[in-house]
């Protein structure tokens, strides 16, 4: 390889090195940005999951409370119904 050819090759390699360095610098910056965006999405997801769990637990407590209320109200109705029946029976006997 002649000196002239070597100079051309070095010149060309220098250009490519400059291009790679610049591209690498920007790509690194972009990756950092994407990572931070990704982490934001993850934390957003995790926050939403926590909210969901809270709502789910709350819902469970609410359902249990409501079921108990319904059961009590049903029992009360039964009691009242039997009292009423008794009253009706008594009244027919009196007549």
């Amino acid at each position: 390889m002649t000196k002239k050819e070597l100079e051309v090759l070095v010149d060309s390699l220098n250009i490519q090195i400059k291009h790679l360095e610049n591209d690498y610098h920007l790509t690194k910056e972009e990756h950092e940005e994407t990572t931070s965006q990704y982490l934001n999405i993850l934390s957003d997801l995790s926050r939403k999951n926590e909210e969901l769990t809270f709502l789910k637990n709350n819902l469970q407590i609410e359902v249990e409370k409501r079921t108990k209320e319904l059961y009590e109200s049903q029992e009360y109705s039964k009691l009242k119904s039997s009292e009423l029946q008794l009253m009706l029976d008594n009244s027919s006997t009196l007549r």
Partner: protein
Amino acid sequence: MDFTTIIDVSKNSEISSIKETITNILQIINDPVSGAKDLKEIIEVDPPLTVKLLKLANSAYYAPTNPITGIQEAIVTLGFDAVRELAISQKVCQLFANSDTFHGYSRLELWKHCLAVAILGKLIYRREFRKKGDDIYVCGLLHDLGLIVLDQFNHDEFQNVLSNFTKDNKNLTEVEDNILKYNHAEIAMNLCLEWEIPEDITYAIGFHHKPGEVDEEYEFITRTLYVANYVIQENKIGYCDMQKPSEVIYKKCLAKLKIDSKSIAFFLKDVKNELAKLEENGFLG
């Protein structure tokens, strides 16, 4: 049709539908606190864009382990910058849909040219100047918007211009100036002014055939656009509107930008690869 009429007609036409997407995305680019969520909001209201985004994110090139079904997930996979480019290019691409060919011109060929100029402009910005190149990318996509306007709203005179362009050994802007008394660069610049597109993009588009005449403030981006346009025309990628591109202006631009002319050859291969990748994924037309 005179200049004022053609601007009035086009600014109230479907061509203006690209304005919103472009200004919104440029706003995201220039806002340091904006994120994937803001971009997602722009994309999710555009079903064809959503489909293309998901198709690309699930393509063999990215090969995700599990299928990607969400926009935000796709943005993370492809990268914020790539999705911004995709969103702008797909919106602009809608204008190039009609593919009738006459006097060597077709919108599809023009689209290939614009996309190639955008990609090359961005590569020059990234690798020569260590700048992201979002603005030059938009310049590349929109620099020949005036031709679409002429094709759509002044079709007969545009055909006359093209017929003279193929006969005479002149650049398209010269033929337009002779016949219409205005040219496609002026139309695009005035539309961008109407749409309040950032000034550097607007003036670079307006002066993309005469970068020496633009204000010093916008010289950098305008000269880069000229270099990208010149190289793509010289390499016959897509439609060419310069039959005798000025090598003198090209060399002056390279000198002003401090770019070694040997650099360009390295970019061309990557432009062709990028175009091939886009074509493979159905983004070229």
